[in-house]
């Protein structure tokens, strides 16, 4: 007969039915004569039962920690101090208008994102977003007819809010005009990127940086069919040369 110490190492295999017939029979024989090992079996049975219903099969993706902690550092800390990425900006400057510096990925030069920084005083909500979008369109010249409004949803409580419009241009192509409030200053080594997403994957519409201020308007030509790429995302991407979307989402919307 096996010793208790040997039997106990096999308890998990016994519980999961991994022992062959002969080993299981020998195991049963031992358990019938050994109350201590039987008690041990009962205890481990409870634990393995809990484990099998505890969702262990779900593992967070490896990139999530970096993404989330990067975004959180953009926030003021709980004691009210500015986030590490915005501490060089005074609160006053962040509330009085934001200037946008456009950075175009070379491969995306054809899909230029046009950004306009508006020095207008920020009013309390998004009610004037449409006015700003129209002003933006006027500034850009004849851009076509609005197809539909776009309502963005922030990813997480980043304090960013945005609205936009899908516009059909006279040449039949589309353009997305977005007005956003509260996009945090771009952290060092990162850039914001506008994406279209669909079943066929992700297509970048261009990238930009936010250096100060609080509100911004941007206009992105859309080189693909909005029907095939029905979602718009704005993400915070690392400047690592990787053309794929790897950074955390800041805003997203359905077209």
């Amino acid at each position, binding site marked *: 007969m096996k010793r208790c110490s040997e039997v*106990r*190492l*096999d*308890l*998990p*295999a016994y519980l*999961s039915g*991994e022992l062959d017939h002969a080993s299981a029979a020998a195991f049963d024989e031992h358990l019938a004569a050994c109350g*201590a090992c039987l*008690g041990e079996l*009962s*205890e*481990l049975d*409870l*634990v*393995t039962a*809990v*484990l*099998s*219903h*505890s*969702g*262990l*099969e*779900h*593992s*967070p*993706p490896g990139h*999530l*920690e970096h*993404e*989330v*902690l990067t*975004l*959180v*550092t953009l*926030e003021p*800390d*709980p*004691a009210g*101090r500015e986030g*590490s990425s915005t501490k060089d900006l005074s609160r006053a400057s962040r509330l009085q208008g934001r200037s946008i510096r456009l950075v175009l990925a070379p491969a995306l030069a054809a899909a230029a994102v046009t950004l306009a920084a508006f020095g207008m005083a920020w009013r309390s909500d998004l009610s004037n977003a449409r006015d700003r979008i129209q002003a933006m369109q006027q500034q850009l010249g004849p851009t076509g007819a609005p197809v539909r409004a776009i309502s963005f*949803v922030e*990813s*997480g*409580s*980043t304090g960013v809010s945005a609205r936009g419009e899908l516009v059909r241009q006279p040449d039949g192509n589309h353009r997305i005009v977005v007005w956003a409030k509260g996009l945090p200053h771009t952290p060092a080594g990162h850039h914001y990127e506008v994406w279209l997403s669909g079943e066929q994957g992700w297509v970048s519409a261009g990238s930009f940086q936010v250096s100060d201020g609080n509100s911004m308007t941007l206009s992105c030509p859309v080189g693909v069919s909005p029907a095939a790429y029905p979602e718009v995302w704005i993400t915070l991407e690392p400047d690592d040369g990787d053309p794929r979307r790897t950074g*955390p*989402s800041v805003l997203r919307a*359905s077209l």
Partner: protein
Amino acid sequence: MARADAENELLRAVARGDPDALGELYRAFERPLYSVGMRWLSDPKLAEELVQEVTFRIWRRATTFDVRRGAASSWIFGIARNVAADLARERARRPIAVADPPRVQETLDEEKAWEAWQVSLELKRLPRQQQEIIELAYGRDMTQAEVARTLGIPLGTVKTRLYAGLKSLRRSLVERGVVEESSR
């Protein structure tokens, strides 16, 4: 320092604006958060959103944490429950394709989720070598022989680490009240 005390202390440090404490707290709670996100929302993207949003709320609201009203773990679980409910409501408003299965759980199964939450937390506290064997055996339904092949270690080592890990886990889960104390 006891586990719960250590978590409470980390949360207090987060309230003082310590980003390192936030990172440590995040690493302790990432997996439990993601697991309850998957349990409640059945969608990896939404589970990621839940992790992100809960982390934001921890950072913003850590100053409101009061240990007299419950431990850090319970406080964070409560935030996760609220965020999951918000995300489920938001998703219910989005159009879904007719062929898609129903994606919104009508009620959040809190009791089972709380149990799973505590298992995840305790698992994270085991030595890494025991943790990975338990994850492969019970998370991916591998046999011990498969675990041994996957990790490139002898079967006997798998047996020893698995048994030791389950025993440690049991002690912790008894302490948390997830499984009953043995009457032996």
